[in-house]
């Protein structure tokens, strides 16, 4: 009996999972303290309400996009928009091969990610939007100062690369969003301003942060080393780069 109940539950979960790769959840607007800011100098930013996809974009979704818009096939894409690793894990420009349909798509450039989101009337989330949602754990809106949460993320960051699982297998966070941590890194719209700041209105500090990449030294929460890692990672990217563990999801 117990196994029947569990089986039914699991089946229901599977059924629900079928449409995750297109589903959006509404994220209520809130005040967000960016990692690089300082709480004692009014660095808060207002993030307006928006919608975010529950899971990262998958191989099968991206394949459908590439078939719709052949400019983004790996054998046709302009080199300005993607480096040579673009979609290199697929068997051919239009076949996944051993790449599973429900795995998050990786080896995609920022340009390609943005074009995909554009094609379905969506966009990439901004850094503030992504970080605001990603600091929630299963129960707290802001778990960024919770050592257990931070450690969990850091453990993932320190693991060697393994095969990617399918999307949506991790528990939803407080917002109903899955896989923000523990599966792939994700492109954001404004990654090209990763290590700089500007919400500190004290002139000397503002100048210091504006012109020094060392804003990290003054970071909001030194304890949130996971956020620091993300900012550092983003600052190493370029919009053409493709990386085997870097994917994306769209917002609206």
């Amino acid at each position, binding site marked *: 009996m117990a196994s029947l109940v569990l089986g039914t539950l699991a089946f229901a979960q599977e059924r629900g999972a079928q449409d995750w790769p297109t589903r959006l959840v509404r994220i209520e607007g809130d005040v967000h303290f960016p990692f690089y800011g300082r709480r004692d100098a009014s660095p808060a930013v207002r993030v307006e309400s928006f919608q975010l996809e529950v899971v990262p974009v998958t191989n099968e979704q991206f394949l459908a996009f590439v078939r719709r818009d052949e400019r983004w096939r790996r054998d046709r894409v302009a080199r300005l928009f993607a480096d040579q690793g673009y979609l290199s894990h697929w068997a051919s420009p239009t076949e996944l091969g051993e790449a599973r*349909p429900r795995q998050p798509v990786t080896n995609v450039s920022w340009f390609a990610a943005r074009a995909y989101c554009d094609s379905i009337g969506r966009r990439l989330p901004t850094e503030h939007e992504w970080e605001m949602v990603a600091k929630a754990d299963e129960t707290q809106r802001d778990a960024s100062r919770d050592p257990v949460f931070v450690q969990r993320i850091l453990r993932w960051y320190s693991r060697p690369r393994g095969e990617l699982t399918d999307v949506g297998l991790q528990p939803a966070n407080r917002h109903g969003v899955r896989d923000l941590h*523990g599966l792939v890194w994700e492109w954001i719209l404004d990654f090209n301003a990763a290590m700089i700041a500007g919400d500190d209105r004290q002139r000397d500090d503002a100048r210091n942060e504006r012109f020094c990449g060392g804003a990290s030294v003054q970071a909001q929460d030194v304890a949130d080393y996971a956020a620091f890692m993300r900012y550092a990672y983003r600052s190493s990217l370029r919009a053409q*780069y493709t990386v085997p563990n870097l994917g994306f999801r769209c917002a609206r």
Partner: protein
Amino acid sequence: MSSRTNVWVLSLALALAGCDEPAPTAEATEPAEHAEATEHAEHAEATEHAGHVVEPHEHAEHAADPHADHAAHDHEPLPVLEGADPTATLHDLPTVFRDPEDQEVSFRDFRGHPTLVAMFYGSCTTVCPLILHDLARIDEAVGSDRLRVAVATFDPERDTAERLRALRTERDMDAARWKLLRGDEDGTRDLAMSLGIQYRKLPDGEFAHSALIVLLDGDGHVVERHEGLGRPLDAVIARARTLVGGSP
């Protein structure tokens, strides 16, 4: 095993185990690098941030590199991002900009002309005048009608066509060869992304940004990247001279 089965089995496993731990699946940087990154951040010294080449697929291993010129002074711009693939051409950028006469301009229009490209904004009083000054010096030293100069604003809202016309007059720019460009928000970001320029709008309306002058050949390939301010312009001048003296 099909993905459907995978979902089912894992769901069952999670239900049985009450487990909320994510599966160990993703690539990441090594812990040792994390420690190193912290050390860099704490002891950051003036460091040549840009210019070293990162091969595709090695970027992830370069993840933690926050040591951007901590000893910077007020006029020091943000570091630029890595150079792009040399086979890429900026002429592929579909973005349409507007010049001070409100005419549409895209980078394809510079086909056949070696072109200096930079980004700035009009109300910038520190970094941008120096970038414009460097562009003028290069242009003067090259002294060729074939050379084009394309300068796009980070701030199309405040840098209106009228304001850009005034700037062009004030700085005595040759309107036939110097194009001051305004894009929309997406177009501005696309150009910055294409060139590897970091920027962010600040709450006071100013922009933090990298200082970068790029030289394109007549096919739109980046052949020289001049980063920073107050550095010798010899290399970019020499390269531009070669290009303008080449095939028509």
